């Protein structure tokens, strides 16, 4: 049994949508962060699928870079969130409005 490219793309699209609306609608920074990661993973999934169906390695190459960068990003991002919590006592974005003033 083979799975068509469209199925992969639909899953990738759904994942991206979940991540996107999560960013738009949630308030917890950690959840936002996970949603960002979800969107990133949606694109990686799409790239892998393209690579597989084209029979070329370009997509896979991208994915390796993305994973590396994402790992570094998560390390920095989570550290920032931890620091944020230590300083401000909260990670809710609606309370983090210091830029307003």
């Amino acid at each position, binding site marked *: 049994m083979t799975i068509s490219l469209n199925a992969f793309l639909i899953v990738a699209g759904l994942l991206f949508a979940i991540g996107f609306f999560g960013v*738009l609608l949630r308030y917890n920074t950690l959840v*936002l962060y996970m949603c960002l990661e979800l969107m990133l993973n949606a694109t990686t999934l799409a790239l892998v699928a393209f690579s597989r169906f084209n029979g070329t390695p370009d997509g896979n190459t991208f994915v390796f870079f993305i994973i590396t960068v994402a790992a570094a990003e998560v390390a920095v991002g989570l550290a920032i969130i931890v620091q944020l919590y230590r300083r401000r006592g909260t990670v809710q*974005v609606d309370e*983090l*409005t*210091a*830029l307003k*003033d």
Partner: protein
Amino acid sequence: MTPVTTTLALLLLPLASAAVIALFLRRRHNLAAALSVLAAAGIAALAACLIFGAENRGQTITGSLEWLTLGPLTLKLGFLVDDLAKLMLSVVAFVGFLIHVFSLGYMHDDAAKARFFGGLSVFMFSMLGIVLADNLFMIFIFWELVGFSSYLLINHYNQKQSAADASKKAFIVNRVGDFGFLLGIIWCWWQFKTVNLAELTALRWQGGTAISTALPLLLFCGAVGKSAQFPLQVWLPDAMEGPTPVSALIHAATMVAAGIYMLCRINFLMTVDAVQAIMWIGVATAAYAALCAVVQRDIKKVLAYSTLSQLGYMVAAFGLGQLVWLEWPQADTPHQLWFWGAAAAMFHLTTHAFFKALLFLGSGSVIAGCHHEQDIFKMGGLWKKMPVTFWTFTIGVAAIVGLPFLSGFFSKDAILYLAFLNNKAVFGILTATAVLTAFYMVRMWKITFFGEARSHESEHAHETGLTMTLPLIVLAILSVVGGYSGIFSKIAGSFAEAVPEAHGSAHTGMLLLSCGILLLGGGVAWVFYKTEATDSLAAKSPAAFGLLVKLQELFDRLYGYYVAKVQQRFALVLDFFDFIFVAGVPRFTAQITSWFGSGARLLHVGSLHGYVYWFLFGAALCWAIATGLL
């Protein structure tokens, strides 16, 4: 002080008092009351200066300053204090002062005394403005101000829904009349290019200016509203929701008489047809109100309908006398200032102010004595318990029914004599009305003061204090002597000479007629009404009683139907069109602006989600540019 500064001080004194009360004394009730009464005393003193002062006798005081210039239209504020104004001034100042004193007693325990006395001061200011004004615009300004202060004071017991409704009704009904008045003033300015009374008089005597009948009738609309003439009479009985001194001051002695005063001010603008219409409206009001008064239970409502009826008399008198002059213009020289009609109307206005203020204050004393019971069928037997009130009230009743040689006798006979000379139909109706007046006044008087006490409140009635009885006594004296020409000409000057007076056999005839009216109306009422807890007329002839009640309610029902069923629906249709077409367009454009505003705001409020939307918008924009869509 020059006469002009005296007049100015007279006008500004109550305004100052009202301002001080409104700004500083709203919680200092007794101080506010004292200030307002002092201001009223000051007004009375200054008015006495103007009226009786040797240097002012027979003089007309004028003075004016420019207020506004709008293109060709210049609005001026100024004084014209002639004999007519002095007469009205004496009524407003002296009766007003006595009522202020009475209010000290009547409103003694009131929780909002400061507001009440502040309102009285505002009213005095507005009323004096009408009296002293030298042009129609200024009259109109103060005309609205008295309407406003009347609204304030009717609504004094503002926790009562009926009082709130009554004040709104009074204000709105007055607006109907005032609209016509304003149109009349604009017309007047358009035709004569001036609204100054002295200049208008001069223009009129030069001749050659034809006046349309509609002009005086439009001006008369103002009087119809303010003096509660047929068919705008509905507000006055409801206005009795206000405190009793207010009813005495505004709704009996002064403000409702302002309409008649205004008519006399513009008497030179009259035409024959207009005067006919005015006369018949006055006659209709007099007769209608007298019929309604017969079935009232509330002591103040009886007096309110009686006031309406007497105002009708004055308007009819004005019409009758004016007619005489207009139909034989050569008989009077144009330089004769006052005519029979104006003189007879103002004479009755003055005596009416005395005895009706007395009757209202008397009823206030009765109400206060009976612990705020107003139903005459729950009173009774008060003559022993409240002797001062009883005797003064009796004098008031005697004056209004025209007992010979009291003030009401002279003024009412002047009107009846005028009617007798000119129009027999009017004479017949007015005589019948006089009989009815005697009938309902004696009915009220007997049921209120005689027999046994018919309720707990009237059993424990007590005479009221000195601040209330003293004004009653003074007003009673004025009601007795106010009609004698010696007294009247002192305050009215040249005016008194124009009052029509019967001589010789006609004099005897009028005297007999007056006695006949009194005996017939009063006698029938005295015999017919029993001092019981029920209305004798309702018991013996329910049909007649029901008919009169229906007649009384007719206009309220008619207006209620019109407002609820016709006007309201029409207004709803208009409101719909307004919502969609007129207000809809600006509302939609405003909404667009508002959207831009909230979008731009998102950039600055520090909301992460706002930034995400903007990011999205930016990405879409970039995409659109990249694909060549933009």
